[in-house]
Structure formats: structure tokens, C-alpha cells
């Protein structure tokens, strides 16, 4: 069986801002028709990772390792090739996308912008209207300004913009933060459906594990610039093995589960600041309730933690025998 080139591949990707390491070695793949979720909080490096795909990081950033789009290293693309790939090959729905709309331009003009930029000006109006239809925004919104739309509608417009040039890969960075639960469900359903329709790939980034579990096939959890757990989404969320994933999952309890009723659990401290990570140790150790003495002295890498699963925790080795 011939395996097609993955749409996106990170091979040992690192991103440094001077001495600060925002991403410290990530290996991930996204194939056509696949949805991959990346979970993490502030300081995890997830947004930096997303921006590195289209070389959208500031000049102060140094990208190490490889970022392969359709097999080609983005670092080696010429400016013209990069421009062509941006949006037409891979589109990004940014964090806070609702605020990324220009308040003084009409919606239709903004959706048309990437279409026109990538050279095609035939039937632009028709395409814009078809896109709005696909994302479920009423046609009259085309002539409206962003402030006249609701938050959910603006988010749909951002998705329409992302799909405007029929990309092969869509990267969505926190596309549903600040949206209500119901609107969030609508937007995620929409995103998943559109991506499936086009057999495109989707990289979905969020701090909300339940969002990712519902929409993604596979899930990777990032902490302090590294992947600390990886596996099938539902599996990882229902049976997390890394203590950090467990804490993230605990933030969204299963309603009806008596174990979490009146029993909230959180981690002390804050997610680590990339600027003050030193030393060779598991970065999660200061906040880990299950830390062993050797967790403070040796760095911890990903290791097998079950079928199709990996986790960067020494505890996984011990529990592998008992692990489902």
C-alpha cells in the first residue's frame, strides 16, 4: 500500500527566540483527511509551532529541525514558493480570529482578499457567496461590517476565509475560545465537516481537551515546548497517563461522575515560562504530585504507553504492565 506524503510533518522541530526555547523538539505528522489536536496552555509552545509552519514567526526566531509541508522543508522554500503556499496550500485560523477582521472593510471584501492575492479573479463574488453559504452565514452578511456580526458569525467568516483558496491543510489555533458552548459546537462541527469534504488535513490547537476529543482523531499534549503525551484523542482524554494530561482533563470533569462531584483538582503554580527553564529535569516535575526523586535530575522523553500511545513520564514504564 503506497503511503502518500504527509501534508505536514515536524521532525525534531525546535524554535528559539535567542536563548529562550519555545519549542524543544517536536515530532508530529498530519496526513490528508486526518485531524490532529494539539493541547496545551500558555507557554507550551503550541502557537509558536503553528506559526512556524508558514514561517510566520518574527525575525528573532530560529527554527531548528525540520518542518515539512508536502515533503518539502519550509525553510528551503523561496519567497515566491512560500507566498504561494501561504493560504492556498495551508491556511491558518488564528487565535482571537474574531479580532483579526478589519473593522472598516466589508466581509465580502475580506474573504475575497486571499482569492485575489492568489491570482484568481474569476467569479470572485460567486465564490465568496458559496463560501458564506458553506459556513452557514446568511448571504446578506457579505455586505456587512465585522461589528454587525455576532462572535459566532465572525468566527465562521474566519473559517470561510481560511477555506477560500481550497487549502490542503488547515491549522486552527484556539478557534473557539471566547465562544459559547453551543456556538463552539457548531463551529467545530462545521470545521470538521468542511475539512472532511475536501479531504484536507486539520491541525487543531486548543487548551480545552474536550474540544479536541470531540473533533480530532489523534491528540498530542504539549508542555514546556515538548510533547508529553500522544495517542488516539478519545483514549488520551478518557484515560490520560501523563500527570499533566490528567490535570488538564480534570479541568473539564465528566458531568455525572461522582468522583469529580465537589472535588475540583488543580495544579499549583503556573505553566512554565519558556524564559526560565533550566537544567536537565522533567519540566513538569515542580508541579507533579507523583514526582519521583529522579524526575528532578534526568530529562524525560516520550516512551510507549500502550497501543498507539506515547507519554513522556517515567511512571508510564512502571504502570505499563497494569495499563489497559
Amino acid at each position, binding site marked *: 500500500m503506497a503511503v502518500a506524503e504527509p501534508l505536514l510533518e515536524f521532525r525534531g522541530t525546535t524554535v528559539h527566540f535567542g536563548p529562550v526555547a*519555545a519549542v524543544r523538539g517536536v515530532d508530529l505528522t498530519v496526513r490528508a483527511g486526518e485531524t490532529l489536536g494539539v493541547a*496545551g*496552555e*500558555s*507557554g*507550551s*509552545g*503550541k*502557537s*509558536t509551532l503553528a506559526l512556524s509552519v508558514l514561517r510566520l514567526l518574527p525575525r528573532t526566531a530560529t527554527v531548528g529541525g525540520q518542518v515539512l509541508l508536502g515533503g518539502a522543508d519550509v525553510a528551503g522554500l523561496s519567497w515566491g514558493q512560500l507566498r504561494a503556499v501561504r493560504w492556498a496550500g495551508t491556511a491558518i485560523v488564528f*487565535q482571537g480570529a474574531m479580532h483579526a477582521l478589519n473593522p472598516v472593510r466589508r466581509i465580502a471584501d475580506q474573504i475575497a482578499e486571499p482569492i485575489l492575492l492568489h491570482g484568481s479573479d474569476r467569479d470572485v463574488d460567486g465564490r465568496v457567496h458559496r463560501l458564506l453559504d458553506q459556513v452557514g452565514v446568511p448571504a446578506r452578511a457579505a455586505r456587512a461590517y465585522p461589528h454587525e456580526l455576532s462572535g459566532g458569525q465572525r468566527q465562521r467568516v474566519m473559517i470561510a476565509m481560511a477555506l477560500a483558496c481550497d487549502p490542503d491543510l488547515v491549522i486552527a489555533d484556539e478557534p473557539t475560545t471566547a465562544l459559547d458552548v453551543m456556538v463552539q459546537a457548531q463551529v467545530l462541527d462545521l470545521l470538521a465537516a468542511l475539512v472532511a469534504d475536501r479531504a484536507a488535513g486539520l491541525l487543531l490547537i486548543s487548551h480545552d481537551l474536550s474540544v479536541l476529543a470531540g473533533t480530532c482523531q489523534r491528540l498530542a499534549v504539549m508542555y514546556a515546548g515538548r510533547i508529553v503525551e500522544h495517542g488516539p484523542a478519545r483514549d488520551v482524554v478518557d484515560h490520560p497517563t501523563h500527570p499533566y494530561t490528567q490535570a488538564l482533563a480534570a479541568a473539564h470533569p465528566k458531568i455525572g461522575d461522582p468522583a469529580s462531584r465537589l472535588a475540583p483538582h488543580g495544579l499549583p503554580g503556573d*505553566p512554565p*515560562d*519558556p524564559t526560565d527553564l533550566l537544567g536537565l529535569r522533567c519540566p513538569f516535575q515542580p508541579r507533579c504530585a507523583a514526582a519521583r526523586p529522579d524526575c528532578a535530575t534526568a530529562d524525560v522523553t516520550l516512551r510507549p504507553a500502550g497501543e498507539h500511545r506515547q507519554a513522556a513520564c517515567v511512571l508510564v514504564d512502571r504502570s505499563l504492565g497494569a495499563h489497559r
Partner: protein
Amino acid sequence: MTALDTRPGVWRAVRGNRAGLAGLVILAVVVALALLAPVLTDPVALDVTRATGARLAPPNGRFWLGTDESGRSVLLLTWWGARISLLVGLAAAALSVVIGTVVGLVAGQFGGWVAAVLMRATDFFLVLPALVLAIALSTVLTRGLGTIVLAIGVTSWPTTARIVRAQTLTIRTRGYVDRAVALGGGHWHVISKHVLPAVLPLVLANTTLNVAGAIIAESTLSFLGLGDPTQVSWGSMLNAAWTNGAVTAGAWWYLLPPGIGIVVVVLAFTLCGRALEAVVLPTRRGGGRG
């Protein structure tokens, strides 16, 4: 986080701004000289009846900057003139800033019809030709430094008022002001504990620029003959030079020193003020992480 305004932060930032630093140094020198005038020189020589030099003599060995129409040393006059110009400039700026800050604070904090009335008054004074009003006041009131200070102070507060009001409105939208109100704090508490400390740095920067304007205003008024006839200031020197035909006599040494003095001091204040503004109103925003 939000604007850094602790003392060490301000000093460090000003140090980094070379123009501001240059202005500060110039000001330090000028102020030092002005303060030390009675120590380093003999004011007796300012008395017209005791002048010893020749009339309108060009710079020579004895009078480094020449003499005026009464034979007094221009250098001495310039030196002492600095005291008056600085004094009036600072006093007028202080008056203007106090009025402006109070008006701006009250308008920003209370809103409603109070603010409407105050802001319309501000607009009125803003639109009024300040110089004309200052001249009018100076002619009506008794001649003297106090009058000049009053005239300038009363006409230049609107800009400060607007800046202070804008900043007050901004601070009032901050979460910690909501919290102070939820804790039970009243107007006075909010103003004194939260608004004023945030507004003062801005006021300081604005004051510095205000002084520059006040010095020019004082010089103008004195030049027009509205100053205190018994005191020597740079403006009055220019007035004297003009009326005594120094221009036609080609006595450049009488015109240049006060003129350059005004320019240098105003420039120094402006540089400092701009540097302070740059420090106090940071435009950078904290970047996201992750």
C-alpha cells in the same frame, strides 16, 4: 503588564534616551547657573545708575558680551535674566498644570453635566487666543511678575485638562477601579489611590512641556513691554534692545544672548518632556506565549 512607572524604571528609561538626557544636562547647568547668580556675581552692576561700561559697546575684554544702552554688562543681564525667565516659566506652568489637572480629574471622574460644563469651559479657553488674553490681562491688572504668571497660567491649562481627563477616563475603565468600587470605595478613594498615581507621570511629562511654552509666553509678554519694568528677563532685554535701536546700531551682542538663552532653555525642556512622555506612555504590548 501595564505601564512601568516605578522610580527606577523611569530613570533607567530616561537614561537611555539621549536627547532627553542632553536636555536634562542643559537644564541642570542653566538652573545651577541661575541659582548661583547671587553667589558668583555682584547684582549691584545691574543697577542702571551704577553702570560702568560704555553705551552699546561690542564684546571686549572687560565685558565679554558687550554692554547695553545703559552701559551694563550684557553677560550679567543675561545671567540674571535667566532667573526671572525660569521663575516665571515654572510658576506659570505650575499654576496651569494645577488648574488643568483638577479640571481634568473632576471632569473624568464625575462625568455627567459636571464634565459637560467643565469641558465646554475648557474648549472655550482652548479656542481663545491665549496671547491676546494674556496681553489683555496684563494691561488690566497691575504690572508685575505675579500678573504675568497669572496671565499665562490661566490661559494654558486647557491642554493639560484634556490630557488628564482622557487618562482619567482610561484608568476608570480598568478592572481595579471596578474592584475598588465593589469594595465600597467612593470617589475620593478612587481618585487618590488609583487615578491620581496613574495620571501624575503623564502630568509630569506635560508640565515639562508646559514650562517651555510658559517661558516663551513670558518672553513674548515682556518683549511687548508688559513685564515687570524693574526686573530683567530675557524678554525684557529683547524689548530694551528693540526700543533702544540696537538693531539699527548693529548691536547683535544685545539681541543674541537672550534669544539664544530662550531657545536653549525651551529646547532643553522640550527634549526632557518628550523623553518623559515616551517613557510614561509605552506603546509596546506584552507578547503572547506558547
